[in-house]
């Protein structure tokens, strides 16, 4: 197996509020391999975005704090690095695309300015060079008449164009890793397809790893190489996309897949996972999914779920597959 470009180990990011400690990310591990597209999947609020922000050290503190774990990028633990070191990596080597381009772009600066400032900063380009590069980037993401568009303010662009500009911005310094946080959620269907097209093209043309955060399995199946399923701040299951979608093990993953409308079968009712995501404040010793799990065992309530390697590169975090566990469903 290739050496991971980015390894996340036992990452724990908590938010300390007046109402208690929210364990938004509670001990997750994964590796991002060179030139692969890893999808981070889960419901809203399961900690996907927090994980991404934790990697870049962008957690607002207070109230958030990374309490444990390491994020190793090229043998450097970013969590132990100085702010300055991390800052040098941000945008230049690890870039990020945010969910809502509308609010992620600064309303009072032109698109070109927002893209060029990063180029000037990291690549030490002159004004003119930065401008040229900006235009070519805008062209690359498919913005018509890019030279003019560079002088536009975000409000003068449509939602899809903004998202493209956002992508162009993230690509501006040829990053090694691109983290895309639900880039297709806030746009409508046709644009979504175009955006996905861009990502697919980027995968082909550029040698970079993509950490793609989404809650849509359809998107994952289109673009992902491997995927990681998260639930309530913890890992549920990780495998290649094909393996996981074809052979899901974790009851939560199974539930997620069942939620998808299956066109091949004439099922007229969509299934859903009963219950809601648990509060992340109340401490529990056991598996966080057990209240919603139809296969829950007695042990699920008492003991944290173990990691079980069920197949080559396919791990599941569930008592059901624990070799030690043979007890009956409760």
């Amino acid at each position, binding site marked *: 197996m290739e050496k991971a470009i980015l390894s996340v180990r036992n990452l724990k990011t908590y938010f300390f509020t007046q109402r208690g400690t929210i364990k938004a990310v509670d001990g997750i591990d994964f590796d991002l391999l060179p030139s692969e597209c890893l999808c981070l999947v889960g419901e809203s609020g399961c900690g996907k975005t927090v994980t991404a922000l934790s990697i870049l050290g962008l957690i607002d503190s207070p*109230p958030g704090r990374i309490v444990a774990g390491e994020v190793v990028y090229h043998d450097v633990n970013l969590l132990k690095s100085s702010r300055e070191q991390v800052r040098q990596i941000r945008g230049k080597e690890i870039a990020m695309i945010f969910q809502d381009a509308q609010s992620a772009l600064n309303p009072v600066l032109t698109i070109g300015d927002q893209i060029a400032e990063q180029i000037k900063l990291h690549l030490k380009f002159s004004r003119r060079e930065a401008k040229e590069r900006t235009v070519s980037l805008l062209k690359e993401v498919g913005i018509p008449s890019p030279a003019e568009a560079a002088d536009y303010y975000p409000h003068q662009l449509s939602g899809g164009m903004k998202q493209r500009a956002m992508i162009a911005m993230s690509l501006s310094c040829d990053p090694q890793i691109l983290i895309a946080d639900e880039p297709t959620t806030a746009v409508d269907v046709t644009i979504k397809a175009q955006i996905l097209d861009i990502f697919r093209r980027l995968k082909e043309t550029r040698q970079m790893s993509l950490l793609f955060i989404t809650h849509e399995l359809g998107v994952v199946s289109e673009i992902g190489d491997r995927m990681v399923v998260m639930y309530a701040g913890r890992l549920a299951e990780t495998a290649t996309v094909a393996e996981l979608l074809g052979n899901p093990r974790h009851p939560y993953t199974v539930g997620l897949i069942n939620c998808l409308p299956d066109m091949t079968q004439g099922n007229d009712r969509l299934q859903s996972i009963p219950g809601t995501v648990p509060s992340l404040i109340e401490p529990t010793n056991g598996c966080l999914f057990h209240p919603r799990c139809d296969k829950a065992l007695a042990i699920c309530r008492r003991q944290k779920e173990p990691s079980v390697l069920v197949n080559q590169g396919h791990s599941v975090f569930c008592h059901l597959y624990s070799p030690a566990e043979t007890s009956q469903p409760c």
Partner: protein
Amino acid sequence: MTNWLASINYITGKVGGIRKLILILMAALLGVTILLDVLVVEKIFDPLGYLYIALGTLAVLYGIYPLYTSRRLVGYYWERASQNRLAVAGLAFILFLILLALIGPFFTTDPTATNFEEKNIPPLGFTIEESVYHPETQQSISKTITGSGKHPLGTDNKGRDLLAMIVSGARISLQVGLLATGIAVALGTLIGVTSAYLGGKIDNILMRFTDIMMTFPFFLLLVFIVFIFGPNLAFIVLVIGLTGWTGTARLVRSETLSLRTREFIMAAKALGASDSRIILAHLVPNVISLIIVIATLSIPGVILAEAGLSFIGLGDPSVTSWGMVLRAGQQNLDTAWWVAVAPGVMLFLTVLAFNFMGDGLRDAFDPRSAV
């Protein structure tokens, strides 16, 4: 009994809620007393009395009553506001001040009672050396004057008890602050909400009018009007109230603009509620938190405006306000510092307390600051 209740229900149903009924009744009552006042020679209330009643009614209907009906929400806000220690301290001081103004006069002497035998006595615990030159003997006599418990804060150059003057001033400052702010905020809210809700031409006219009002420098206008028509406390309150609503109107308008398209307003409209009902029953209660913050934060300005008027000699001479004491005291700062310091400090603390409280309330009402 049930008959009686039923008829009340019937009436309230007709006019659109108990709140409106009370409003109508109070307006009628006020109208009748004003009529009586005009027709009958004997005065029933002075002008301030009417203001009190009118604003009190409004405060009950749009302040206390909603607070009572939504105790849980109030409890939530209180919990959040009470996190801010400065705001709690401010509130405590304001409550103390209100208490002082209400019951203080019963424990202090008459603030206008002079005693030239006891002039310029320093506060309790201070001793001053006073040198008095006498033209007949051509001698300067040095006197040592020590503060005593009889006048805990000392006396001024007419031998008036400073504590009594401060207590009286608290009453005046609070009156001016609350009443003038009340008028300004009520007017500003009405104009702001109406303007935003009705939109179009009316919005345009009201906002242009607001712009014009804002082009007058506030204090210049105040001095101008008070100089021309004479300084009278009720009049000063009225002038401050009638000129100070512009900021409120603007803020309330922009807040209402964002409410106007919300679902509950749409729903009310769809159910055929009248414009006045939507404004009074739906929009105003929803900007009440903003209004409370604006009111709290504009009280200090009003109090300072009154003090400033007094300072330049345009205060109502028939009342003892802090500004009046300050004005008298600053002439004698070198010989009797306490006369200027006491009202100055009170003015400062009061303004500070309202600012602290206003800021705390703003944070408490602000959903973004929830952590």
